[in-house]
């Protein structure tokens, strides 16, 4: 909402600079987006009168003018076409500064002296799209004689501060000069002066006898019509044009400008019809017929439907109610009699219509936010008053006002102590009453309560809390003290799950993994890239009805596709190595759920490339589980997971539950993802991991007695997995085997083809005494025997 300060001052006395006013208005709830000081830098422009125009001797397109600026006459060369002797024009004299930093100096144009410049509106700082069509490309011819030599800004109101307010959706009443003046008065402590509306109607009885029939009472709650005859369509006077332009509206002609002026002033959209094109004497407000087609005044043929309201005569539509008039009944220079409409249309109806048609106008924007139906009457009178004073036409007596259900003020009882209780203030009741009355809300004290009467232009005030805001904001949020919440102490913190997540993240960060963050939605094709099977649960997506595009159209069922995309992007950006992880939800439809919400399962995905192999990833997984206190971790060969290399993939198991899968990415998947380096990935069900997590650590005493360390090298068939050897070591190691560790796998010289040598270090210890050689030998022998008997391994010589 653009508010020219000088216009605002018509209704309220303002005795402060624009920036101070802006700050105060912002702090009372009318946020100032910014302000522009129009014409601020323009100097040296005066009123001049054209005395003569002669052809330039050396240039066809230029003329030499003599301009009287009071005590002297200047010679000015110009290319302007729209000037005539006797015109009053703005003249930039030597040394003048114009808009856009343009400076004017005496000089010669094609050999002829030119002592200044005649100005267009644009050169005086008006933005081009606001300048009336007829003078857009020429010199600004002033509308009437003005005293010569006076500063142009003394005769035209162009030097002004234009404040731009952000109006919140609950305050449509502020989409008007009067509404903003009311807020200003309440904010700075002034009195709102309404315009004086008086009307001199023609005595003449008319033969128009207009009737209004509201058939669609849901769409239209009030309709006022007036007839104006002897209309003279012409340009509006300068002052009116200037106000419109400063408020961001381009002047068109006197009638249109007046309707726009009143809309800006009161917030009530008006519409003028050429009465000539209305058949019969009845204005019908009805629902559009299915399939009805209608040409709006922007020349577009519109398809209407039954959900829309139209203004019609007995045979055709005249306007789309509250949105736009029709081309046929548009006011033109030939118009002699007009029907002026001031009506109230339902905001939901207008919003839906405007949206369906993709047609938003100043009128529809106001109606859809809500206009007070009680201002329709004064607004139309104000327009008629302007029509008369500007001699744009003669207003006839006839005024039809169909208003079946009058909107009444609301009375609400509020507790004054509740205001203070919720604001944390100590305001006396009298101050509350003053504040409310500054907003034209009548408040009467009744015992410990206030009975407030809400004016009909404030549709946003319904309950007690709404008045807490009104009183608080006008008193000033900045004056309310700052306190810390009293009451019961609540123990803050994170849930167990959140702490486990933090623990897992810390472990992965310390292993050198960067945390990544990717979209929760993906392309349905993303699972193709990671070779997910045709009937996999991972293809059962939660789908978006209105995605931005296919790429983000379903909720992810796995974190792996996004991870692969991140790894691929980094490889393509020539990042030589990367370690990355993400913890996030996957989404699985749950048709059983009452609320239809899908399962959201927290997953962890770990990925890496560079100087890595399967075992470095496995070390990370083991380290992570160790940090989370999950000790019974196991890995099982997985040959059938299509995302991974069939010979380099394992399921991650805890107590017979598959927690996740890890491995080297399948070459096919690498190709699908445009990846040139081997990637290692682990995907884990983090919800399950959390269930197995044991973060409580118990101290074990440090050993007092020495350990005995023995090596064990076993030669065994290549296909036997070390896990088999380790099972036997664990089983036969008895309670003196403290730990064991594989330190070498050897193939080659001295070892038969098809066999490998696997070497372990075994550590034996008794916590209560020093072990003897015999005890240890016995256990070590039992292990060797077991390996021989159970899996055919022999001690390496």
């Amino acid at each position, binding site marked *: 909402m653009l508010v020219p300060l000088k216009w605002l001052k018509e209704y309220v006395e303002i005795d402060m600079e624009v920036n101070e006013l802006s700050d105060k208005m912002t*702090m009372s*709830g009318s*946020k100032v987006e910014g302000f522009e000081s129009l014409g601020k830098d323009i100097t040296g422009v005066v009123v001049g009168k054209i005395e003569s125009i002669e052809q330039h001797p050396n240039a066809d397109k230029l003329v030499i003018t003599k301009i009287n600026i009071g005590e002297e006459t200047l010679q000015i060369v110009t290319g302007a076409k729209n000037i005539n002797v006797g015109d009053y024009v703005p003249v930039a004299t030597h040394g003048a500064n114009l808009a856009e930093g343009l400076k004017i100096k005496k000089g010669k144009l094609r050999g002829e002296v030119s002592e200044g410049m005649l100005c267009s509106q644009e050169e005086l700082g008006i933005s081009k799209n606001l300048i009336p069509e007829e003078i857009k490309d020429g010199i600004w011819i002033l509308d009437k004689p003005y005293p010569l030599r006076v500063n142009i800004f003394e005769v035209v109101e162009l030097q002004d501060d234009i404040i731009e307010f952000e109006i919140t959706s609950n*305050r449509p009443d502020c989409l008007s000069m009067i509404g903003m003046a009311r807020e200003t008065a309440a904010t700075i402590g002034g009195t709102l002066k309404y315009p004086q509306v008086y009307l001199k109607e023609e005595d003449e009885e008319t033969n128009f006898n207009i009737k209004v029939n509201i058939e669609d009472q849901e769409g239209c709650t009030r309709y006022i019509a007036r007839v104006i005859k002897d209309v003279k369509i012409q340009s509006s006077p300068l002052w009116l044009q200037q106000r419109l332009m400063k408020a961001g509206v381009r002047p068109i002609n006197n009638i249109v400008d007046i309707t726009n002026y009143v809309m800006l002033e009161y917030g009530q959209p008006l519409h003028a019809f050429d009465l000539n094109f209305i058949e019969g004497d009845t204005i019908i407000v009805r629902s559009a017929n299915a399939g009805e087609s209608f040409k709006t005044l922007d020349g577009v043929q519109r398809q209407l439907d039954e959900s829309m309201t139209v203004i019609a005569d007995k045979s055709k539509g005249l306007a789309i109610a509250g949105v736009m008039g029709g081309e046929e009944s548009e006011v033109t220079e030939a118009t002699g009699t007009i029907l002026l409409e001031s009506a109230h249309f339902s905001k*939901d109806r207008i*919003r839906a219509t405007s949206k369906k048609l993709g047609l938003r106008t100043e009128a529809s924007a106001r109606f859809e936010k809500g206009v007070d139906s009680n201002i329709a009457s004064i607004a139309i009178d104000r327009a008629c008053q302007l029509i008369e004073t500007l001699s744009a036409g003669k207003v006839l007596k006839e005024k039809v006002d169909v208003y079946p259900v009058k909107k009444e003020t609301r009375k609400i009882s509020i507790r004054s102590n509740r205001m203070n*209780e*919720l*604001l*944390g*203030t100590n305001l006396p009741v009298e101050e509350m009453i003053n504040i409310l009355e500054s907003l034209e809300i009548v408040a009467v004290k009744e015992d410990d309560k206030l009975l407030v009467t809400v004016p009909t232009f404030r549709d946003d005030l319904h*309950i007690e*809390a709404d008045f*807490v*805001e009104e009183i*608080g*904001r006008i008193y000033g*949020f*900045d004056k*309310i003290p*700052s*306190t*810390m*919440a*009293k*009451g*019961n*102490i*609540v123990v*803050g*913190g*994170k*849930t167990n799950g*959140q702490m486990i997540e933090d623990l897992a993240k810390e472990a992965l*960060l310390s292993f050198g*993994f*960067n*945390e*990544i*963050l*990717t*979209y*929760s*939605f993906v392309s349905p094709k993303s699972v193709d890239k990671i070779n997910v099977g045709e009937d996999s649960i991972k293809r059962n997506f939660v789908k*978006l*009805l*209105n995605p931005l595009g296919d790429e*983000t159209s379903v*909720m992810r069922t796995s974190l792996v596709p996004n991870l692969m995309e*991140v790894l691929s992007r*980094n490889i393509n*950006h020539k990042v030589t190595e990367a*370690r*990355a*992880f993400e913890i996030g939800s996957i989404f699985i439809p749950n048709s059983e759920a009452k*609320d*239809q*919400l*899908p399962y*959201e399962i927290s997953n962890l995905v770990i990925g890496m490339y560079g100087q890595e192999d399967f075992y470095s990833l496995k070390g990370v997984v083991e380290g992570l589980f160790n940090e989370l206190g999950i000790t019974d971790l196991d890995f099982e060969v997985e040959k059938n997971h299509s995302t991974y290399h069939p010979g380099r993939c394992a399921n991650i198991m805890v107590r017979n539950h598959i927690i996740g899968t890890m491995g080297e990415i399948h070459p096919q998947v690498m190709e699908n993802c445009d990846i040139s380096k081997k990637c290692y990935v682990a995907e884990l069900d983090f919800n399950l991991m959390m269930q197995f997590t044991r973060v409580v650590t118990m101290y074990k005493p440090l050993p007092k007695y020495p350990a005995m360390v023995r090596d064990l090298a076993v030669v065994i068939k290549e296909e036997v997995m070390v896990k088999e050897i380790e099972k036997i070591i664990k089983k036969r190691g008895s309670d003196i085997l403290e730990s064991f560790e594989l330190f070498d796998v050897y193939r080659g010289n001295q070892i038969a083809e098809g066999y490998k040598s696997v070497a372990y270090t075994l550590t034996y210890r008794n916590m209560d005494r020093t072990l003897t050689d015999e005890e240890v030998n016995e256990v070590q022998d039992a292990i060797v025997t077991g390996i021989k008997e159970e899996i055919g391994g022999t001690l390496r010589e």
Partner: protein
Amino acid sequence: MEARLNELEQMAKNEIQEANSSDQLEKVRVKYLGKKGELTEVLRGMGSLSSEERPLVGKVANIVRENIENYLLEAKNSIKSKELEAKLSTEAIDVTMPGRKTNLGKKHPLIQGMDELKNIFISMGFQVAQGPEVETVYYNFDALNAPANHPSRDMSDTFYINEETILRTQTSPVQARVMEKRKPPIRIISPGRCFRNDTPDATHSPMFHQLEGLVVDKGITLADLKGTLEVFTKYFFGSQTKIKFRPHNFPFTEPSAEIDASCFKCSGSGCSFCKGSGWIELLGAGMVHPNVLRNCGIDPEVYSGFAFGMGIDRLVMLKYGVDDIRLFFENDMRFLNQF
């Protein structure tokens, strides 16, 4: 014999002085003091001396031995330190060569920002609450008093799964869920992912992050909201930070306010960062609307509360000077490694 002893001492002394390694010194020691050493030999010959001579010569022999031992010790210390010096000098390295890399992973900058905020509020007694990303229209809009025709419900703003299910556009539904389940006192924050139908560009992302806070108890006031947010902004942006409470309008709070913080780059004098205004729009807040409390089964006559919400992505962008929100979701390691 006495002369022979003095002669030995002199010889030993000379040889000790000439020795320049521990090995040579050891040889000298063996030569004179060893089992078959020369001094030992001399002492062995003492048996042939008379009983008057023996103590005298014995005394001299002991002095000679002590002297030699002293010479040896002295020489040994000096050689040892020379040898150490030599060793250290050969072991010198080029300390300007690069160190071997130890990589510590980096938390995602958005999560770092979120953690920082969480910790501030946890210290003020807030609990961290979470909720689903796929949410019902009821919890996301209806329960929060959003009017039925509010534009934020439009498909052009919100991603729909079906008529009743959407991707949450804010983390406020978590507040409604918590209020439904728990009795006051409630003091929670809910951080998390949110979604809006915005085409990605430098400042928009269809997925972004919010942190919302909610306090419900007896006697909670707007003054308490101001106090809480002042403490928070001072923690997060520094103790000089000022805040500005501007009245605003949100469906779920009444009164509502927008809160600006004085720019942490220019302290309010105006810079490119705050677009010259000296202030940065920080968050939306207000007193919980009685309808919202009622919708969640809390009596607004007994309890009152405040709520606030802020976008994390923008805050983190401001804090680190990141000029394109898309960088957060591209996860280029060269980007992530900077935080």
